[in-house]
């Protein structure tokens, strides 16, 4: 056992304060168990088929798609922070960039893993690349997400290679150094790809002519949800980053970033959230009064089914939209950490609700005049698979925090520790 402790210590950066090996293993155990359960549930779905879920012909998309869209929105912090640091030259956000990349990597790899279980024939996933349909938003999503995952891997590798032991391998050091030059390019590429796939995820629903609840007018081939999703993603990415980092600080008992970083992220998030809410309000008015009415669907067709009444729309725009925008930008509240975190959490909640409404409520609502409002409750396999992804994320983040320089040093500028 002491052997293990010694080995473990050797992988941790010199001078970095980390909890004891035993404590760390204890921390990991429940997450590993959850991951194992998730793998088992996913295995059941792959082996027996998707009848293991509670999805059906009317709820063809279920919890997994909702959570995929949510994770990807949360993971937008990765590309957006990179964009802010390298393109908009906001250097004071550099300390948080590595963890943003790790978080992004977790979110996107988890989403892709769940998608592979969600499709009926995973071995045919490559067909999208071979027979792409240029009219389909999902083609766009597939291409951009896989490319962006590749970009994230390339961005994660330098962080990985800066591990104390891995640094000792000269070719790794050289490779990492070469990648350095690529980083701004990768950031720009990442921003470009993300712009499109975040938007296309919104476009997935906005183009659905057959689902007036989701269908929106737009600009050229892009429905308004395309732009709203981008806006909401870049608004929530920084908030999610704040929340995760704050949680990490709480759990590790260490100060990981300067408070100024949180404030800046919060301000950016809040401002973007404000713009998003304004845009969404206008979009909602147009959608309810013009777009849907033109095809015979009135607001009460969408909001007369409890508990999915119009209160949900209000909730999304005001308590989970305007309020966090306010909390995150106005100095009175933004200065205080507690309020900032509250604002960040509400912002994330608002985006989660938005994704939920668009994925689940769209399918619950009737289209034909004689359809009914439908219910759907995910099966344990669906919940467990997703819990497994969360566990995977916690494990990767924990391992990255323990063995990699995710945050660098807070006080003093140690030039050895490069974070970009």
């Amino acid at each position, binding site marked *: 056992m002491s052997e293990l402790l010694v080995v473990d210590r050797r992988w941790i950066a010199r001078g970095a304060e980390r909890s004891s090996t035993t404590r760390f293993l204890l921390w990991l155990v429940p997450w590993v168990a959850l991951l194992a359960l998730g793998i088992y549930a996913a295995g059941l779905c792959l082996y027996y088929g998707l009848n293991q879920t509670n999805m059906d012909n*009317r709820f063809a998309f279920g919890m997994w798609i909702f959570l995929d869209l949510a994770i990807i929105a949360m993971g937008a912090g990765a590309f957006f922070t990179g964009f802010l640091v390298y393109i908009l030259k906001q250097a004071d956000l550099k300390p948080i960039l590595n963890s943003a990349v790790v978080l992004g990597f977790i979110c996107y790899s988890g989403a892709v893993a769940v998608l592979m279980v969600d499709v009926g024939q995973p071995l045919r996933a490559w*067909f*999208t690349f071979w027979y792409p349909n240029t009219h389909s938003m999902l083609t766009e999503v597939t291409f951009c997400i896989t490319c962006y995952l590749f970009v994230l891997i390339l961005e994660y590798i330098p962080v990985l290679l800066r591990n104390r032991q891995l640094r000792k391998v000269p070719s790794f050091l050289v490779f990492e150094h070469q990648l350095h030059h690529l980083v701004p390019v990768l950031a720009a590429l990442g921003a470009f790809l993300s712009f499109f796939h975040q938007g296309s995820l919104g476009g997935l629903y906005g183009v659905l002519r057959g689902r007036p609840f989701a269908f929106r007018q737009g600009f050229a081939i892009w429905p308004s949800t395309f732009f709203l999703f981008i806006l909401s993603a870049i608004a929530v990415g920084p908030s999610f980053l704040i929340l995760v980092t704050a949680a990490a600080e709480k759990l590790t008992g260490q100060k990981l970033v300067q408070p100024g970083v949180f404030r800046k992220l919060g301000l950016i998030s809040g401002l973007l959230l404000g713009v998003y809410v304004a845009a969404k309000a206008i979009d909602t008015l147009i959608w309810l009064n013009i777009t849907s009415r033109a095809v015979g669907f009135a607001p009460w067709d969408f909001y007369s089914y409890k508990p999915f009444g119009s209160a949900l729309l209000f909730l999304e725009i005001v308590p989970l939209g305007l309020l966090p925008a306010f909390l995150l930008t106005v100095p009175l509240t933004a200065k205080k950490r507690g309020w900032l975190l509250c604002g960040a959490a509400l912002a994330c909640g608002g985006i989660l609700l938005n994704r939920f409404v668009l994925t689940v409520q769209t399918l619950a609502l009737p289209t034909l005049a004689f359809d009914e409002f439908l219910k759907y409750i995910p099966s344990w396999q669906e919940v467990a698979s997703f819990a497994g992804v969360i566990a995977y994320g916690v494990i990767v983040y924990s391992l990255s925090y323990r063995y990699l320089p995710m945050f660098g040093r807070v006080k003093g500028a140690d030039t050895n520790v490069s974070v970009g």
Partner: protein
Amino acid sequence: MSARYGMVIDLDRCTGCGSCMVACAAENNVPPATSRATPRTGLTPMLVRKVSNGADGAAKREVFIPISCMHCGNETPCVSVCPQQAVEVDKATGIVMQMPQRCLGCRYCMVACPYHARYFNWWDPAWPAGMEKSLNPGVAVRMRGVVEKCNLCHARLHSAMEKAAANRKKEIDPADYIPACVEACPTGAILFGNLADKNDGVFSAAHSPDAFRLLARLGTEPKVYYKSGQAWVRALAERDSERAKESEHV
């Protein structure tokens, strides 16, 4: 040939017997339900839906509405959303063709279809031992994890085309191409033909004043029309008719 095959279903003649549903399933090698299947996880490329006028007692009326793929002709929702072109509109016939062999099973097309005319193979298709000898050789059996739907009995069109070619004819004989549901209906409620041909009976039926299409205002130009002399049935076409405003929901 450039036909636009479609149907006109006379709802005043549909008795809701379900012969079309069974004949469709037999022709297209649709497997019988597993023990856990329900109306929401079943495979019914032709589905007859029972709709009531909402009244009680002596004023109650019901209508049976057979729903299959509408073979939408304009900005076909399922065609534009499939990420790998596993669905396409056949320009020669107007039939919306589904290729289960290319389908990834992402189910985006099922979300896109406002008529819920697409069905997913949630289970591996299974028949009792030996029953696969009763399968139609002209239609490929699907596997689990793919979407399927009505394709206007394309295997029958294919046979008709082969027969015409063997007889050195350019056009098929309409009598050789009759989808299973049309053939099965005991009251002749389903009229099938080429909507692009003004001499075809289906053309005049589709343009009669009693004819309507479901959710026509969505603009997808479905090729399945319905017909009824009863006003309350015609009102089922769109959501914003008087009937739809009754709060049957919450």
